[in-house]
């Protein structure tokens, strides 16, 4: 579904060139919920953004659904982007448009005829449980609701892929649950492939079937989370998994004494 090969991306910064992603290859299958985890500055966002070429890699190729995006011209790339949804940590909704018009926005971009928009918008809002908020402006919504509007907006053009950059990093743990549940639903019901960047192992454990651990611009380890015994080799993966285990035992302990 998504095939990244030898992706390298270097930024020019004041203190010289900075290699944000170094020679990363990653294959993501259809229907996967694929996690990209790592600490701040590891290059997760940069790698994610190369998938729809918001960030154009200096070297390497990006192929989606067998089509090499890195070879397309800008016009063709825009057409392909219609079928790759994206959501962000800070939601990035249009603040001067209400919820309905925000979800309508990508349909207008895609020049969907007006008559077809309404049923699609209503279906998307229903999917994220916000039909009753259609007339509300983003400023009046909670963080979790805003992110669900962003999900509805990303779904409007019926994408096959949804890219998520820390979708739960600016909401509380409870809201995180509702956003993750919405993502899981759309993956199951619509078969949409999801790539999710996070620095929280909980998020990975909650919805991902695969995960790649990133550090200093490289993927240091990857795991299939359906496997029985996962034995992390790299120190960073050990740290991330151990944290989660500590959390689990904490919960078990709590349960035992409840």
């Amino acid at each position, binding site marked *: 579904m998504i095939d990244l090969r030898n992706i390298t991306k270097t930024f020019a910064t004041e203190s010289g060139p900075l290699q944000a992603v170094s020679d990363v290859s990653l294959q993501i299958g259809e229907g996967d919920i694929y996690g990209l985890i790592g600490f701040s500055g590891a290059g997760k966002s940069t790698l994610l953004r190369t998938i729809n070429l918001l960030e154009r890699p200096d070297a390497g190729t990006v192929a989606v659904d067998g089509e090499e995006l890195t070879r397309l011209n800008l016009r063709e790339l825009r057409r392909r982007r219609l079928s790759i949804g994206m959501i962000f940590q800070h939601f990035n909704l249009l603040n001067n448009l209400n919820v309905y018009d925000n979800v309508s*926005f990508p349909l207008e971009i895609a020049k969907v005829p007006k008559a077809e928009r309404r049923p699609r918008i209503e279906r998307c809002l229903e999917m994220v449980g916000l039909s009753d908020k259609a007339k509300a402006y983003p400023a009046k919504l909670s963080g979790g609701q805003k992110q669900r509007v962003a999900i509805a907006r990303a779904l409007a053009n019926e994408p096959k892929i949804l890219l998520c950059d820390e979708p739960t990093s600016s909401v509380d743990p409870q809201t995180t649950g509702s956003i993750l549940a919405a993502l899981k639903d759309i993956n199951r019901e619509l078969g949409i492939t999801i790539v999710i960047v996070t620095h929280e192992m909980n998020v990975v454990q909650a919805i991902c079937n695969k995960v790649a651990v990133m550090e200093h611009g490289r993927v240091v380890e990857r795991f299939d989370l359906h496997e029985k015994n996962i034995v992390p080799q790299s120190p960073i993966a050990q740290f991330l998994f151990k944290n989660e285990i500590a959390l689990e035992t904490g919960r078990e302990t709590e349960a035992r004494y409840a």
Partner: protein
Amino acid sequence: MLDNVIYAWPELLKSLGETFYMLVLTIPIAVAIGTPLGTLLFLTRPDSFLKWPKFYVLLNGVVNLVRSFPFLILMIAIIPFTRLVVGTALGTTAATVPMIINAVPYFARFIEQVLLDVNRGVVEAAESMGANKLQIVWKVLYTEARSGIANAVTIVTVSFLSYSTVAGLVGGGGIGDFAIRYGYYRYQTDVMFVTIVIMVLFVQLFQFTGNFVVRKLDKRL
């Protein structure tokens, strides 16, 4: 004492009419030309969407050049141009030429600034949806910046109500001309006072209307 005011009243109304005539020509033209220019300034800035660095340097330079002229000097300096455009350098229509030339880059700068305030993330989200540059400008930038644009129109209108008085010095008529004749040459303080009160009321009205529109357009809070 009231006699002076009553005597000057018809003249005052005529002058006010001329001032509004100048504003009604200047502001819409400044908005119509300044908005696309300001948008181009924004789009061609280093690190922005259009990689036209030479164009930016040129446009930015011209905007700065025109903006650096004190208004009275601009007015005198472009008299030949004004004559070319309206056939004469005298009169109210002629006075609007320097006003427009001053207002266009002023408004363009405002637009550039207002667009800079639009959240980059929203623009990026639109890009990720496959929006082209024109769609980003129309559907994202202008939508998100609309209250800022309304605010800019308000400020420019109030400023040019003030600039329009300078036109009185070169035979452009208007409220400035009126003030010179009655307040300065005839020294009628009462007439001057009434004029000032009327101007203050108009500025308040413009500002109040502007703020109202801005509040209506702004859904960010």
